[in-house]
């Protein structure tokens, strides 16, 4: 009993153009994300500018011994630093220059802010990035073992370790690790003396401490496990297993890409904060020290630059999340 010619399905007719390729979907998501970031940056920098203006203290102290100056001399210094102009004027001037990529010069070292940020920024990014990857990798591995009940002993051990290490304060963990690995065992060099070998040894410890010790490990593991257990009960996973297809190929997009990217976006600011503490303990020349000094000196250009940089890093986290999720999940793009 032949069935009449192919059934024209109402839903298929409505959508004319073919589904957008993942590449184009990601591009559209990134454009949306950049627009939103631009609007956000204005808001963030304005908020910080107002806060800085209200904060007591004056950068002139970096230049001269203020207590030896007469009132006029002090006024001259302030004029020289451009601090005597009205608030809105200073903000507009700053934004004007910022748009052209000129963030001004650090009041302290005279170097252009962009260079200061870049020289210290990439180290903080390297530390924060690798620590974030380590946290996500550990979380994903533990969650997978726990969700699939594959190796209960290993899964249990990793889980307990995650709970204990993320309850440990990272500022104390740093000291403990240095004490054990460097002072007692002398395994890790305390400072990179230039050659590659010690450089990597020197790099590994802070990443391990920040990656495991930033206090989010247990929460991330639990979130990933709950999500993974949900996905494992989906019908299409049962179909995949019925087809004898490799489980991970069907699981990785919804089970890992989606949750990991949203965790990355949510937890990045938190790990960035942890980096500031770890940098100090491990003498890691990152943005942390720059912020410290700038806040104490009221080095306004640097502080505004740092605000911009950290807002950009946070937004980059969100951009990565949007891109990953749109690429993975076709339904999101429409």
């Amino acid at each position, binding site marked *: 009993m032949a*069935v009449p010619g192919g059934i024209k399905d109402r839903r298929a007719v409505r959508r004319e153009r073919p589904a957008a390729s993942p590449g184009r979907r990601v591009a559209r998501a990134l454009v949306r994300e950049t627009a939103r970031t631009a609007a956000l940056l204005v808001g963030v920098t304005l908020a910080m500018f107002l806060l800085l203006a209200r904060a007591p203290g004056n950068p002139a102290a970096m230049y001269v011994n203020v207590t030896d100056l007469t009132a006029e001399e002090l006024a001259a210094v302030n004029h020289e630093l451009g601090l005597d102009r009205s608030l809105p004027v200073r903000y507009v001037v700053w934004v004007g220059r910022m748009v052209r990529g000129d963030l001004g010069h650090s009041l302290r070292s005279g170097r252009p802010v962009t260079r200061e940020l870049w020289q210290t920024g990439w180290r903080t990014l390297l530390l924060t990035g690798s620590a974030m990857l380590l946290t996500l990798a550990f979380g994903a591995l533990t969650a997978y073992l726990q969700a699939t009940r594959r190796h209960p002993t290993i899964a249990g051990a990793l889980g307990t370790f995650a709970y204990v290490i993320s309850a440990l304060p990272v500022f104390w963990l740093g000291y403990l690790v240095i004490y054990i690995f460097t002072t007692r065992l002398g395994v890790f060099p305390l400072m990179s003396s230039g050659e590659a070998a010690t450089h990597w040894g020197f790099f590994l410890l802070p990443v391990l401490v920040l990656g495991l010790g930033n206090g989010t490990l247990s929460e991330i593991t639990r979130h990933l496990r709950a999500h993974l257990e949900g996905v494992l009960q989906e*019908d299409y996973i049962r179909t995949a297993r*019925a087809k004898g297809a490799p489980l991970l190929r069907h699981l990785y997009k*919804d089970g890992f890409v989606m949750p990991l990217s949203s965790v990355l976006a949510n937890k990045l600011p938190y790990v960035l904060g942890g980096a500031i503490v770890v940098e100090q303990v491990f003498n890691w020349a990152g943005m942390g020290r720059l912020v410290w000094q700038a806040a104490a000196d009221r080095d306004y250009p640097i502080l505004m630059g740092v605000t911009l940089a950290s807002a950009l890093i946070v937004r980059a986290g969100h951009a990565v999340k949007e891109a990953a999720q749109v690429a993975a999940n076709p339904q999101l793009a429409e």
Partner: protein
Amino acid sequence: MSTAPATAASRTAATGPILRIQDLRTYFYLPARGRFLKAVDGVSLDVQHGETLAIVGESGSGKSVTMLSLMGLVTAVPGIVDGRMWYRPAPDAKPVDLLEGLGRFAKLKLGPPPEVHKDTLGWHKWHEHGMSERRGRDFAMIFQNPRNALNPYMTIGQQILEAIRRRSPELSAAGAADEAKGWLGKVRIDDPGRRMTDYAHNLSGGMCQRVMIAMALAARPTVLIADEPTTGLDATIQSHILDLMEEMKGELKTTTIVITHDMGVARRLADRIAVMYAGRVVEKGPAETVLELRREPKHPYTTGLLSAIPTAEDIEQRRRLTVIDGDVPDLSRLGTGCQFLERCAVRPAGRERFCEEEPPLGEVGQGQRVRCWRHLRHATEA
């Protein structure tokens, strides 16, 4: 157990069934209640080559769990605890027990109360190794609500190619793509080329089920299992799917097991029928005999199911529909004796006392077996 007589010889030249499930038990442990949920409690079934067996029963009768156990998809604890599954890959090949070695990892002590000792890790390794080779090669499965059963993150083409690649890895990319399009065409999907790049959410329920069927058949399984394939689809689409399945049956002669609660589906597709109730098979036999309402002997439950289907006449005279009163039993509180007793309307006159004891699935003629004392002689009878 006696082997079933060779029936429908013309179609099955085989010496024995392609698949024989013997005394399969699959239990689930409920920690909160501290009891076992006996989803499948001693099921035995045979399927001949090329034949279509329909397993019929209300939801919660264990029919789906039986098939999931066959496919090795039951991960709940403790899962399959007893039984054997003889599988004959080719008509003349020697049967292989799919559950061979189960005893080493799971020991069942039946005595009230039942106990199971299970080496979870070992069972998992054995179970995963054993079944994963055969899934997608010898056995393929179609599921209910197809849109959820398709992976939303992969295109239709990728999912079908995966099945084809697993069956014939030697195919070139283009070759595989053509075969995929071929299968889409065979299941009557329009413009297969473009459909390959679509996702599940771009298609309707009916279209998704067609894709599922194409994907299952593309693996050229020896046994196709369809778990409620048409449930949830609206009537017209349902009949199209059934037509398609009938056509595939005729054309490919694949042995098929259909699980459904809809007698109409069973009548359309099945050569033989097994009726399941409370985790047991209560009647099995050729479709003609089981489905004929007035033909006796028949298990009261089957009669109840058949009479519940409204005929044109009933609708005309607006007769009240006949219903099997009572409800499906709680599988974690099954007593001894015939499970259907509370709901049974035709208690064997004068022999009710036998119903305290569970009747065996006795032979009542022409390859038909019924689990009811009305048709079986009790050992104690003279």
